């Protein structure tokens, strides 16, 4: 079975609000899958259901072939989770946090020290290992949270907006780290607000909106469906309009036919944000 994650008609409501509405989703083994959507789209609820933290109302979800509702213990053994909010114990050092995670994930005591040292080395945190969590920078804390989730060598890693709040440099370092993990065989399920992140990291992306998965596919395919070239026009110095074309020639022809008084015109490659806006009418990150 090549689908690491499989859901069918998965639904979860909070009161009258459907956080997830009949979600059908497949994530393949070995890929980095990006889950895009504005705040409240249902991304975090989906992760909570798949990681056994929240019970769905109806539908089916499995991880590595194990039913999330009836075999949560088996699911927990194959997943690692890095939550949106830092979930380290700030009264402990990085090493102590790692030791705690190693213990609750049943890592044998003989292997614990070696594995912790290896992972600290892997993320270049060895010299900070005995510092308290709050003494570290945002990027280091995120790395520490990620290595905690990797101690038991999970086959699937959930990363819920891992780079929020990080500066550009720290974000890029974390991307390299995720690529390295993926190259080493870990399947990654990533939610993000950053379109660039999804474009550069993900083999496939899914776009969520109001609990629905409105589109899914390879970034290049999704862009191509919309049109490879975008023409942005500023109308009356107030509103930006975007038109999409299959190639530059058609786009150029369109621009030449625009009235001479048209303000700024930009011709550029279509990106995932365009796909997102076209499909949802909202920008990524809007709530």
């Amino acid at each position, binding site marked *: 079975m090549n689908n690491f994650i499989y859901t069918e008609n998965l639904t979860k409501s909070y009161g009258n609000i459907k956080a997830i509405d009949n979600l059908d989703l497949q994530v393949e083994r070995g890929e980095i899958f990006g889950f895009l959507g504005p705040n409240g789209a249902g991304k975090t609820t989906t992760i909570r259901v798949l990681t056994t933290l929240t*019970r769905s109302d109806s539908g089916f979800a499995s991880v590595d072939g194990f039913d999330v*509702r009836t075999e*949560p213990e088996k699911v*927990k053994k194959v*997943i690692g989770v890095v939550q949106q*909010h830092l*979930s380290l*114990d700030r009264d402990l050092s990085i090493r102590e946090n790692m030791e705690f995670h190693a*213990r*609750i994930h049943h890592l044998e005591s003989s292997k614990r020290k070696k594995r912790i040292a290896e992972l600290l080395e892997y993320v270049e945190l060895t010299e900070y290992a005995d510092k308290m969590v709050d003494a570290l920078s945002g990027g280091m804390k995120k790395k520490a949270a990620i290595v905690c989730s990797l101690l038991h060598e999970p086959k699937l890693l959930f990363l819920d907006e891992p780079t929020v709040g990080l500066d550009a440099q720290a974000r890029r370092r974390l991307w390299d780290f995720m690529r390295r993990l993926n190259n080493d065989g870990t399947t990654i399920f990533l939610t993000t607000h950053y379109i660039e992140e999804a474009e550069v990291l993900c083999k496939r992306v899914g776009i969520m909106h109001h609990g629905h998965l409105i589109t899914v596919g390879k970034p290049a395919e999704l862009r191509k469906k919309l049109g490879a070239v975008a023409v942005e026009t500023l109308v009356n110095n107030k509103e930006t309009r975007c038109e999409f074309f299959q190639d530059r020639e058609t786009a150029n022809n369109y621009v030449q036919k625009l009235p001479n008084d048209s303000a700024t015109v930009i011709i550029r490659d279509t990106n995932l944000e365009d796909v997102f806006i076209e499909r949802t009418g909202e920008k990524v990150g809007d709530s």
Partner: protein
Amino acid sequence: MVTNFFSDTYAVLWVDLRNMRRHWKSTIATSLVLPLLYLVAFGYGLGQGVNVDGVSYLAFVIPGIVALTAFSISFNGAASKLQVDKFFYKSFDELLMSPVSSYSIVIGKALIGVLRGSISALAIYVVGFALAAPTLLANPPFFLMLLLSCFVFALFGVLIALVINSHQSMSTFSTVVMLPMTFLCGTFFSLSQLPDVAKAVLYFLPLTHVSNLLRTTVLGQPFPWLSFVGLIVFGFAFFVGCMVALKRSSV
């Protein structure tokens, strides 16, 4: 399976032990302030020369203060860290997403309360023993009942931390439930002085049974089996409550 239960329970406790090790002086010192004040104010200030149920008020009130120390420190010791893990650090979710069983989570989280409650209650007992040694006994049933009481109250703390979802609600709970229990459950006065209706109501609170158990065992009086059974029933109810609350927190 059994090995996993013990190692998982210890893993849950381990993180709280590390935390306690870092702050042990302040943790112990602050937990002793209030009981010692009660001891001075009620034992010495108000109780000089008074006899209750045939013993000096000091000898009467010391087991009561030990009981309320076990109650408040075990409860808060288990509840406060769990609430911090839940609301601030979000590290409780890590436990829920791990293969650690619900039994281990509940017992492990309760054990830090048991440890803190036992240490504080024993410290108060030692002070009380020094003050009223001839009357107070140091016998195994007393220590066993103290340990059992700490465990029941720590389970109560875990339960409340699991079901209450804000600091405001926790603070309201402390004022509306904990504080009245501290004063009314036979800690500072004998329930024999109360009307039957009030007595009946107070027997539905666990601290009443603990006050009774600790007082009778430390004063060498006949063992109150009814209170013992009552405490076991409370402990069982709190444990089941914890399991249900935990089940509702996750799949």
